[in-house]
């Protein structure tokens, strides 16, 4: 276990589904050879098939302390990567810009489709990245001991020298957030922008987020927003807590607005989306979290002040991010020998 744990909280009520985070990550980390299909950060519409397709239904993680069997997603499960006929379209004209192959699945295939409840459509966006788990199933599964969790910040990394591309980690990860670079024969994943974090700079996905929905800091720092949201106000939850890996990325669940025409009723009385679906994603505790958020909202609407809502608004960077520089952190730990 690491001495400190860096963490991210994402307020799903603020996510626009704009994929700016996805592209910030893509441009910074996964535009190399063999990485075309990888989105270390992706945003998927929920309910929906997810990326890779059905990742939440194919096992992984732990059951009774033991790794649970799973499957390797195929390239098509991640979604095709294809080109358009731009050359013909631009230089010959007279035709539509079309993909150069039949498209059957893409990483964002069912965007904004969602589902129906009582005739009303509902959906929300779920941005996903590696959860840098406290108990990483990938690390447990790797026979090469190529995966390690850094003591100073809890970031989970794949040693590209030791990795032999066996892909036990891909199977073991219940979030399917490890990818295989076939050209290099290596497993690759989100590195939580550790070169930025070490300089006290926030992750690219968070920095670029127009919705300002990401909070980053150390979970064990009582002054950090992530600590307050997760441990003090208890309004943020990990994804699929039953997978047994103790994820360190947390979500403020979608507030689940009441249905049309149910003004005055509580969110829990007349929810727009089935509470069972939120319980499926975030566990039973999500009901208490929504109750807490609703009570904060009422207080604010009645002229009171809500520290939680103020924090969640998070207008400025210094409100959302508390990241000490790596050298300072090491000195604080007393591990630094001058």
């Amino acid at each position, binding site marked *: 276990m690491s001495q400190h744990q860096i963490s991210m909280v994402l307020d799903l009520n603020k996510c626009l589904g704009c994929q700016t985070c996805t592209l910030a990550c893509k441009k910074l980390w996964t535009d*190399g*050879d*063999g990485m075309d299909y990888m989105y270390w950060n992706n945003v998927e519409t929920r309910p929906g098939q997810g990326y890779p397709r059905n990742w939440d239904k194919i096992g992984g993680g732990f059951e009774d302390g033991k790794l649970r069997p*799973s499957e390797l997603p195929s390239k098509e499960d991640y979604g095709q990567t294809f080109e358009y006929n731009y050359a013909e379209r631009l230089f010959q004209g007279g035709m539509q810009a079309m993909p150069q192959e039949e498209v059957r699945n893409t990483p964002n295939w069912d965007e904004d489709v969602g589902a129906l409840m009582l005739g009303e459509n509902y959906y929300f966006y779920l941005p996903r990245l590696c959860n840098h788990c406290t108990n990483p199933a990938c690390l447990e*599964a790797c026979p090469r001991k190529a995966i390690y969790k850094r003591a100073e910040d809890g970031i989970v990394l794949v040693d590209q020298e030791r990795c032999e591309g066996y892909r036990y980690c*891909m199977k073991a990860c219940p979030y399917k957030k490890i990818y*295989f*670079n076939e050209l290099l*024969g290596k497993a690759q994943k989100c590195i939580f922008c550790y070169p930025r974090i070490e300089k006290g700079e926030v992750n690219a996905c968070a920095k670029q987020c127009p919705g300002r929905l990401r909070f980053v800091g150390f979970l064990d720092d009582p002054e950090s927003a992530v600590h307050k949201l997760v441990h003090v106000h208890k309004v943020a939850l990990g994804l699929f807590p039953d997978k047994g890996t103790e994820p360190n990325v947390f979500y403020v669940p979608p507030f689940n607005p009441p249905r049309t025409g149910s003004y005055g009723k509580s969110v829990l009385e007349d929810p727009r989306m089935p509470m069972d679906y939120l319980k499926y994603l975030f566990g039973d505790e999500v009901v208490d979290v929504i109750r807490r958020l609703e009570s904060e909202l009422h207080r604010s609407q009645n002229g009171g002040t809500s520290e939680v809502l103020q924090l969640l608004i998070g207008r400025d960077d210094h409100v959302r991010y508390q990241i000490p520089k790596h050298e300072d952190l090491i000195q604080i730990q007393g591990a630094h020998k001058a």
Partner: protein
Amino acid sequence: MKPLACLLFCSAAAFAQNALDPTAAEWKSAAHMTLSLQRTPPLYPTDAPAAIEVPSVQAQFLHTAAGNFVRLEWADKTHDTTVLPKAERAWQGEHLVTQSAATDRFSDACAVMIPAKPVIGDLNPSLQMGDADHPVRIFVWDSTRGAAVMEASGRETTKRTGQSFPAQGQYANGKWSVTLQVSDMKAGTPFAVAIWNGSQQDRDGRKYFTIWYRAQ
């Protein structure tokens, strides 16, 4: 150390201009021996049991002035290999150059393991990648990624040396035939063989293996 489970293995001296070619004439006249393959038991609780699809491998050995060669031949209904485009701009790409075509395929492969130090007496190193006192060298040929020399001194210690070695493989009529030039494999050297069947998701310790033999 494991007690010697040794069967005499035929070797042949011959002119070997083309010994690296698995179809070369000298291999046709070289003596051969059929070695039984065992399947490793499931190593991890998440491993599904695997059927025995490759029951045996035929081995030949040529000791020539040009070097020491091993030829392995085994039947495999599925030809699990791919030609990978070269990754030249990984991590620095200005735009996408080459793509990963698949995420879930594994390659057929084979390997010859020999002791890294001369064996004293009739005891061989542990079959599980040697042991601390008896390290091994492993000559791996992967149908997709080519040849690599690895070393180990016990299970989970296997690592690449960064060296390669001459090897050639060919798949025809449902059979792999692979020649490996293993310079350290002299007459009398103990060796063991491993075969990986890609279609069974073989990699790592999930494979077929033989007991120790000696090239005589």
